[in-house]
């Protein structure tokens, strides 16, 4: 399937271009920016989920030395907006305000205070006295959906708290039931999870003159953020600049506006640039992966053919729509098995819990969790091998996912599974599975897929490549590198296309002032969507170079061959790319060579992954330990093998945290968050990680740049269900919810050579 290609720069291990800056402490992140005369702002936030503000008194705050001013709800634009960094869509209801008198979740923004230092700003914010009338919050989906519950956003959902009800189906439920010899069902619950990027959410806004706004912030979607900000402030987009500095991780948390609007308005009010940065506690309750509540039934015939997939899929949105309906929609498009009767009933539900937003996996994670557990139970009930059972039902090249319109264009899932099995065999040969009176070890597996770019084909990207006279190029793209390595990868694609060394490409990215539009860094888009635009821009440049040479040598035949130019006619010449460049720039008939490319998603190729987990169960302790995790992916041509491996390893770690202990929600009894710091919101540490093995199979997608598909989100999706399947085999217990620390003691993973 793979195309024989002799790549020079892609499909190699390439360290990130900005590695030295990061390794030396010179990389500038948002909170490292120091503008002259910069002030600091801090937010006054609601301690209650659902309340009414009765009064706000700033008199004590004003006494803090260094106090500069306060911004109250009545001083800011009142219109509702949707903060999510998606292109406009009727699914994205507008129900959020810059500051509010009616907080709907703990942490809602009430007011903002500015001061000369961050410490003074926080001190003053703490001294702002807000009187509240506390109301009863609806924290769970079932409470909010109860018919007696009051509507939380009456202008969107008058009678119930359902933001959107999405139904997708094919086939006939009764036929599916009749043709199934076995139908298994269960109720699956996953918890909200926080992104916990190590960099805190931060912005520096300069709106000192009240006319031109510049925002430096932790951003994944600078163009969407600019558009929403311009709408909120009633400005032209040309007067709003979003410029992304280095970003310390995103995972979806920065696919939205956070508090840039408040900081901008504060900057205007005090006439100085303003830094507004969150504390870790603020970050933890700012946004989460949606908690889910899922009913799922899967039916199969005796010979193992899937006949029915029927789900009611509910997501806890928190009190603001943000991304929720698009997360639900994305979940409906990730069924990688052939099922003739498919019923997806998706509900986006308002509650007063922490607001759900984008998070690596975007709905796929939640539905795949129950699906892969039920597939495992089905395989067992049918007495089939879990790998073969999945493979025999898997969608093949040329076939469509249920309810999808574009056929799968490349598929290496079987190779992924076989490679996992080979690594598994090596591991078991070294340390055979233990099964004694204390400990039982077992393997569990899961399959997953994702898209390359938003699954609704929203993806759009421009790229510009400008040729310098020494045959180096400036590459301009709007895509945001948030740590995943997209700038290096786009540069590799350009260098490969143009046949020049990687060091000859200088990239500028994600600045609305200077770079072309890009939908944003989300939906695992950048390799595929932006990469395609880069390839098109480079092809455009090459075409222009050739045309210009034909202009210069009008009586000759000019042909390009392997990045050099052969000129036959009155003189016979062969010009290297460098020589041709110089000729073009400085000849009497010279020209400035600028290639432009724009790619609108015509496809959304699915990458695939298989994950195997070896875990052990300690019978007397009711404890579990993860031993080994293997993940092998089909990402098409890996543009940068080092980055792809890093994405797989990082995706595994996030899956481990999700499966074992991470949870961020408001406790119904205390009505406080369960964790306000990283000691209590525990993410995996180095010593927690089991041994990991990652690999990529040989694959090529016809629509991808140099055959590439995506990897970022895919990497984390299969991990939690594979862990649960391993634990169910080891413990003999049926599991249907996360995190596993609710049911088991979690023992630290210990590497075998140290055990």
């Amino acid at each position, binding site marked *: 399937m793979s195309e024989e290609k002799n790549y020079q720069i892609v499909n190699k291990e390439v360290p990130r271009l900005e590695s030295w800056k990061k390794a030396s402490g010179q990389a500038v992140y948002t*909170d490292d920016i120091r503008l002259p005369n910069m002030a600091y702002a801090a937010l006054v936030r609601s301690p209650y989920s659902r309340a009414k503000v009765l009064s706000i008194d700033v008199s004590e705050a004003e006494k803090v030395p260094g106090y500069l001013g306060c911004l109250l709800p009545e001083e800011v634009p009142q219109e509702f907006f949707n903060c999510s960094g998606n292109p406009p869509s009727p699914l994205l209801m507008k129900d959020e305000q810059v500051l509010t008198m009616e907080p709907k979740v703990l942490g809602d923004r009430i007011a903002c205070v500015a001061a000369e230092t961050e410490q003074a700003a926080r001190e003053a914010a703490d001294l702002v006295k807000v009187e509240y009338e506390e109301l009863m919050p609806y924290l769970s989906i079932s409470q909010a959906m109860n018919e007696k519950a009051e509507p939380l956003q009456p202008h969107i959902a008058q009678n119930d708290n359902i933001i959107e009800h999405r139904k997708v189906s094919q086939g006939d439920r009764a036929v599916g039931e009749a043709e199934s010899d076995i139908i298994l069902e269960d109720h699956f619950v996953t918890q909200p999870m926080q992104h916990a990027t190590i960099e*805190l959410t931060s912005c520096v806004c300069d709106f000192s003159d009240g006319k031109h706004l510049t925002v430096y912030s932790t951003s994944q979607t600078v163009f969407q953020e600019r558009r929403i900000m311009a709408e909120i402030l009633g400005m032209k987009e040309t007067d709003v600049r979003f410029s992304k500095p280095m*970003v*310390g991780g995103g995972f979806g948390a920065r696919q939205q506006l956070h508090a840039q609007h408040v900081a901008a308005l504060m900057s205007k009010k005090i006439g100085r640039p303003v830094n507004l940065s969150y504390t870790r506690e603020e970050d933890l309750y700012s946004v989460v992966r949606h908690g889910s509540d899922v009913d799922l039934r899967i039916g199969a015939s005796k010979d193992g053919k899937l006949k029915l997939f029927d789900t009611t899929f509910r997501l806890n949105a928190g009190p603001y729509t943000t991304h929720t309906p698009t997360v639900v929609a994305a979940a409906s498009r990730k069924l990688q098995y052939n099922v003739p009767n498919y019923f997806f009933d998706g509900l986006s539900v308002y509650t007063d819990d922490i607001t759900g937003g984008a998070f690596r996996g975007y709905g796929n994670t939640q539905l795949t969790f129950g699906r892969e557990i039920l597939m495992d139970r089905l395989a067992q009930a049918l007495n089939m091998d879990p790998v073969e059972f999945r493979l025999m039902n898997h969608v093949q090249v040329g076939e469509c996912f249920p309810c999808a319109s574009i056929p799968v264009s490349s598929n290496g899932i079987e190779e992924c599974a076989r490679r996992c099995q080979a690594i598994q065999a090596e591991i078991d040969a070294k340390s055979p599975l233990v099964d004694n009176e204390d400990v039982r070890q077992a393997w569990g597996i899961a399959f997953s897929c994702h898209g390359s770019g938003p699954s609704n084909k929203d993806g759009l990207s421009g790229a510009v490549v400008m040729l310098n006279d020494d045959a180096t190029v400036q590459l301009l793209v709007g895509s945001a590198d948030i740590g*995943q390595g997209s700038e290096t990868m786009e540069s590799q694609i350009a260098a490969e296309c143009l046949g020049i060394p990687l060091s000859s490409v200088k990239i500028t990215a994600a600045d609305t002032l200077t770079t072309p539009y890009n939908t944003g860094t989300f939906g695992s888009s950048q390799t595929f969507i932006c990469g395609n635009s880069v390839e098109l821009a480079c092809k455009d440049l090459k075409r222009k170079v050739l045309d210009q040479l034909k202009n210069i040598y009008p009586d000759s035949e000019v042909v390009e061959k392997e990045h050099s130019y052969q000129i036959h006619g009155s003189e016979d010449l062969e010009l290297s790319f460098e020589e041709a460049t110089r000729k073009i720039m400085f000849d009497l008939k010279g020209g400035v060579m600028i290639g432009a490319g724009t790619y609108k998603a015509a496809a959304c190729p699915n990458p695939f992954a298989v994950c195997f987990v070896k875990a052990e169960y300690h019978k007397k302790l009711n404890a579990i330990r993860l031993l080994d995790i293997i993940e092998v992916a089909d990402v098409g041509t890996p543009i940068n093998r080092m980055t792809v491996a890093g994405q797989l390893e990082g995706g595994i770690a996030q899956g481990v945290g999700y499966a074992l202990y991470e949870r961020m929600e408001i406790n119904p009894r205390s009505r406080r968050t369960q964790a306000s710091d990283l000691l209590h919101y525990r993410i995996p540490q180095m010593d927690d990680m089991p041994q990991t093995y990652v690999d990529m199979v040989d694959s090529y997608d016809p629509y991808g740049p140099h055959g590439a598909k995506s990897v970022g989100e895919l990497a984390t999706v299969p991990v939690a269900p594979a862990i649960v399947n391993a634990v169910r085999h080891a413990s003999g217990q049926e599991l249907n919810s996360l995190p596993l620390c609710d049911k088991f003691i979690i023992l630290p993973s210990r590497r075998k050579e140290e055990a």
Partner: protein
Amino acid sequence: MTDKQYQITLKLNGQTRSFEVEEGETLLHVLRERAGLTGAKKGCDLGECGACTVILDGRAVNSCCVFAVSADGKQVETIEGIGSEEHPHPLQQAFMDAGAIQCGFCTPGMIMAAKALLDRNPHPTREEVRQAMSGNLCRCTGYEKIEQAIAMAAEVVASYAEGKEGDRA
């Protein structure tokens, strides 16, 4: 907010530097806001993430948990002081080569924590590495390549110690 100011002197990356600091001010704050060294990062300000790790008199510390006044007179090493682009520290080189850097926000703290370990113990076992680094959180890499990088750097450091490759600049 206290107005009481203290003068402290640090031996900062080999240079003697004095700062006026407030009573409750942290070493991290001094580095970032007064010394202009933003390589040490603030990921929590609570001693939980390790992004602010620097080396104080030979020991890795979370600089957000060290009062500036208590660092008076001490040696402080930060990421800015351990290597140059021409002569990177072996840990910096290894982190780049191994792909141990993704978003890079944890990187300065990781490298400083690892340097304190290797300075003290040039031949750490994997277990020692994992324990020494467990106070440094990374959300991007899953730690695999960070562990590899530290092992790679340890070999280089050990070979310097044994004089195999001559002196490092």
